[in-house]
């Protein structure tokens, strides 16, 4: 029995000189669906919310509360990034429920792109909160001799974000494929339910770790992070 390598993706078509693979098309579809959904729900906002608007408000407020609890700062500045990351990852991980669709997060390239976004966001928010000089000074905390380790940590954090998401989602897809080829049609359904749970947890963990990393880059910002209250 021969399985396709999970490390390479097939090119569907080429757009000029750029090859476009299957996960990229899935990502575009998810982006379009999320954008369209958000636009449709927020098109007519009212003080007495309809059912979709109430649901969306609940989601946004929950994410904002999580950001506030984890980072200890006002969530407004970080809500767009963290919320989009979480919702995109949740949709992407659960997109395998549609027959014929593989989650784009099961390929290394998508996860690398997401981890790069977080990597850039850590530096961007750190510089915005502390200034270039202040941000560079955080690398010399608690001592200048630890600067190389702090610098390495910046890269390994993003790398581990990428590998963790890839490993979890891809292993689920792979396992379902193996069981399906061995046992038959309806047998992998419990595994798919487990995979939904894993997908939701991984989306949460990716967003939570992004919060923690950005929060630690803020360092001794003007608003010191206070103890999260339960």
């Amino acid at each position, binding site marked *: 029995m021969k399985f396709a*390598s*999970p*490390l390479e993706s097939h090119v569907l078509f080429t757009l000029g000189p750029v090859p476009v693979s299957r996960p990229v098309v899935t990502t575009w579809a998810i982006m379009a669906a999320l954008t369209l959904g958000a636009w449709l729900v927020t098109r007519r906002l009212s003080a007495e919310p309809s059912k979709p608007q109430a649901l969306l408000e609940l989601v946004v407020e929950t994410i904002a509360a999580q950001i506030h*609890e*984890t980072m200890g700062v006002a969530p407004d500045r970080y809500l767009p990034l963290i919320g989009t990351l979480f919702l995109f990852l949740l949709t992407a991980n659960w997109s395998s429920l549609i027959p014929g669709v593989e989650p784009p997060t099961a390929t290394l390239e998508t996860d690398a792109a997401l981890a790069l976004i977080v990597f850039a966001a850590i530096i961007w928010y750190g510089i915005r909160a502390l200034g270039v000089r202040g941000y560079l000074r955080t690398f010399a905390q608690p001592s200048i001799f630890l600067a190389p380790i702090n610098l390495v940590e910046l890269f390994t954090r993003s790398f*581990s974000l990428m*590998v*963790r998401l*890839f*490993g*979890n989602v891809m*292993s689920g897809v792979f396992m379902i494929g193996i069981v399906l080829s061995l046992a038959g049609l309806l047998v992998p359904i419990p595994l798919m339910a487990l995979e939904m749970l894993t997908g939701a*947890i991984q989306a*949460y*963990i990716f967003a*939570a*770790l992004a919060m*923690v990393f950005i929060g630690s880059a803020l360092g001794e910002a003007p608003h010191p992070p206070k103890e*999260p209250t*339960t």
Partner: protein
Amino acid sequence: MNWIHLASILGATFAMAIGAIGPALGQGRSVAAAMDAIARQPEAANTISRTLFVGLALIETMAIYCLVVALLLLFANPYA
């Protein structure tokens, strides 16, 4: 099936088998400690479980690294 294929398959198997032991022990310890903490202080359950999830994710990374190494050996082996 030459020697390199055999060694790669064995290497992948052992990487996963041995590499899963450490994270399993670590995750067991951290979950036990979190249960203990929640039992002592149920009102802090929210904070504890959030920290627990993030910590579990960090521990789990070790096993995921092993998985990636095993996959590299099986599917992207530079010597085979």
